[in-house]
């Protein structure tokens, strides 16, 4: 059976998807990487505007493209945390991090941490953070690809995940950062076009202006302000007004800050700024990235308002037909006042449902669960459903699907790059096998990319529990581990390795524990998995930092953690109860806890650094050097005084 009954939609979707995929592959063949420089940082010669575009595509994931507008539509003001949180981080990047990291001039984030803190242990901790953050994130992307394929191209979800993964692998392994960068530029163009076309159509329909940002503050066709109309309609139906939220103010504050700081600390975002020619280009590039991101991020809240208003208009009090739901009558014959065709179509795939419980033949959409008849409402569908809701031509739907895939693939590629460079460059070449040649390193990077894709395929098909908490994990951990370590490394010359290692580890462990406790719950299996993760980390630390004649403390701890892990997986550890919202620390949700984790990491880093020896003098010189954009000017110390 055809899910959507629409042959044209399938045709346009296939056409757009195949064309764009062909485009990405052609670009990858044209932009092959020949050296490690090409592979990791695209030869340091990407123009700032292009890098801005690539960063925007890298940054905007399947979640930004497909889910965000829907989430805002049904949370109103509370959705602002994503809008401010996922854009404000670029100000921090441009002012505090990007130019200095570019001047530093290496390949990866663990590179900076390891060199600045003159420590293999710090480098390994950074590698572990980078891998964990990136794997959580990439599993979510692959899932998004699978869902888009299965809903629109009638392909099983497994096949969809595999097709997407193979395409990403093709250009990531072949072209490295160079291939990824130019594919991302193309993907940005596809995704922004696909997002704007339906937004402009909807804005014209609902407010009469083609610019969604103006439609957002404009009047509905009847001449009254759109937002105030929506507020009134929602309060009449028993909901909170759209422009008011239900979250605590402190939680809104904490989530926004955690997302901003987390953005600035995410490795796949940071490495994009290694690809531009100069430090000053890193600043400009962050500016361009935010321009390209802002186009989507200022349109999304408008799309959200249109979607919510349209939904209420067309669904509430509409005439329900059990025959149409069962598919025994032609849905194309449904008319004005009937529950719309798209509602039944999405009901077929289990993402919407309604039940005429009071038997009046109509559907009531209400806040009160006793009278509400919209029994299932998946907020993720709205960007995909909007073209149908607005009655737009079927090619627009195909375009949106291609856009969603572009968003997911571009982000997955950036993450794959972080994973492969963390393994080949930071772990293998810098820690485990120091004698590696460039050619061997390049080969390792490509093998690591293939291995990472296999894991991502598995995680996309069988999503582990933590994928649902991807936002909390990725941003919280980046905020609590990388951000303080990098920021202090640039702005405080006294910062030393002891402080950095203590700060990163504490931030990571405290934040991860809080999120697991409130999002997943420490059952015996989860405890065991955490212990095994710790065991592997300790083992790598042992091999990376061992010295002859010293007690192998890391190895001993690793064995203990390994045994705890196995007994946990076997179910011998206690199942601890999952935390409830009432027990949140200061009322801060797991999504916002990154803020607390970051403050703890800062406090621990500074206190530990102050009671341990200052870093060696060459570190001071290095920090001074990265603060000067020119590669030809250096700070003269004693030499200048002696002249």
């Amino acid at each position, binding site marked *: 059976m055809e899910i959507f009954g629409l042959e044209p939609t399938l045709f346009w979707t296939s056409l757009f998807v195949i064309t764009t995929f062909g485009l990405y592959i052609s670009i990858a063949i044209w932009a092959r990487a020949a050296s490690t420089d090409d592979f990791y940082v695209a030869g340091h010669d990407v123009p700032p505007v292009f890098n801005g575009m690539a960063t925007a595509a890298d940054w905007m994931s399947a979640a930004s493209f497909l889910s965000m507008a829907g989430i*805002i539509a049904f949370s109103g*003001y509370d*959705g*602002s945390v994503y*809008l*401010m949180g996922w*854009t*404000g981080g*670029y*100000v921090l990047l*441009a*002012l*505090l991090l990007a130019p200095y990291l570019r001047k530093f001039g290496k390949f990866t984030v663990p590179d900076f941490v390891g060199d600045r803190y003159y420590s293999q242990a710090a480098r390994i901790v950074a590698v572990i953070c980078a891998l964990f953050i990136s794997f959580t994130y990439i599993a979510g992307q692959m899932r998004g690809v699978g869902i888009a394929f299965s809903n629109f191209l009638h392909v099983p979800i497994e096949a969809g995940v595999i097709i997407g993964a193979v395409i990403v692998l093709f250009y990531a392994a072949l072209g490295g950062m160079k291939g990824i960068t130019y594919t991302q530029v193309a993907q940005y163009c596809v995704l922004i076009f696909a997002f704007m076309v339906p937004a402009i159509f909807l804005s014209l329909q609902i407010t009469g202006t083609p610019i969604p*940002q*103006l439609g*957002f*503050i*404009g*009047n509905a066709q009847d001449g*009254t*302000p*759109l*937002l*105030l109309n929506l507020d009134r309609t929602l309060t009449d139906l028993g909901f909170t007004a759209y*422009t008011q939220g239900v979250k605590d*103010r402190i939680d*809104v*504050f904490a989530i*926004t*800050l955690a997302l*901003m700081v987390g953005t600035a600390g995410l490795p796949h975002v940071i490495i994009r700024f290694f690809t531009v020619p*100069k*430090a*000053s280009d890193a*600043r*400009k590039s*962050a*500016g361009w990235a*935010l*321009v390209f991101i*802002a186009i989507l*991020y*200022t349109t999304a*809240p408008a799309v959200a308002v249109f979607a919510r208003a349209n939904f209420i208009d067309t669904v509430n009090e509409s005439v329900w037909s059990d025959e149409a739901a069962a598919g025994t009558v032609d849905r194309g014959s449904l008319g004005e006042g009937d529950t719309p065709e798209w509602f039944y179509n999405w009901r077929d795939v289990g993402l919407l449902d309604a039940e005429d419980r009071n038997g009046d033949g109509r559907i009531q959409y209400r806040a009160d669960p006793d009278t509400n008849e919209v029994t299932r409402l998946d907020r993720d569908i709205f960007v995909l459903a909007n073209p149908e809701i607005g009655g737009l031509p079927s090619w627009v739907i195909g375009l949106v699907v291609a856009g969603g895939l572009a968003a997911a693939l571009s982000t997955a590629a950036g993450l794959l790059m972080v994973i492969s460079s963390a393994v080949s460059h930071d772990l293998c070449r810098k820690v485990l096998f120091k004698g590696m040649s460039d050619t061997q390193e390049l080969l390792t990077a490509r093998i690591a990319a293939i291995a990472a894709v296999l894991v991502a395929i598995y995680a996309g098909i069988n999503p582990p529990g933590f994928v649902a908490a991807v936002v909390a994990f990725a941003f919280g951990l980046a905020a609590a581990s990388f951000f303080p370590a990098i920021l202090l490394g640039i702005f405080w010359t006294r910062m030393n390795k002891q402080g950095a290692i203590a700060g990163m580890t504490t931030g990571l462990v405290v934040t991860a524990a809080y999120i697991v406790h409130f999002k997943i719950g420490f059952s015996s299996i989860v405890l065991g998995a955490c212990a095994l993760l710790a065991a592997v980390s300790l083992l790598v630390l042992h091999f990376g930092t061992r010295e002859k004649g010293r007690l192998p403390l890391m190895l001993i701890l690793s064995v203990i953690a390994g045994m705890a892990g196995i007994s946990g997986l076997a179910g011998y550890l206690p199942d601890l109860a999952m935390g409830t919202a009432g027990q949140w620390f200061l009322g801060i949700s797991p999504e916002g806890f990154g803020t607390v984790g970051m403050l703890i990491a800062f406090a621990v880093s500074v206190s530990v650094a102050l009671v341990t020896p200052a870093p060696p003098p060459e570190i001071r010189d290095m920090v*001074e050097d990265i*603060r*000067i*954009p*020119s*590669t*030809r*000017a*250096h*700070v*003269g*110390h004693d*030499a*200048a005084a002696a002249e």
Partner: protein
Amino acid sequence: MAESGEDHDIPENRFKAYWRENLTLMAVLLAIWALVSFGAGILFRDVLDQFSIGGAPLGFWFAQQGAIYVFVILIFVYSALMHRIERKYDIDDDQG
């Protein structure tokens, strides 16, 4: 300007003056960053919501639109002013 194309040392006190100017500029811009997002969009939004921009309450508008526009402007302003500071201290990267 003449020697900016060659390797050269800059005296420590000039470096410190440059860094102080950079930090001051950063502090001002980050204060604006916090003011439009955490200030206008979250802490003082109830006050601002008494006013409106078009058909939207002002505080709500800042949280969903205004803050983002200001963020973009802040980065380009920083980029331009920093470039001027770097040229003044002859440590810009115009020639590498």
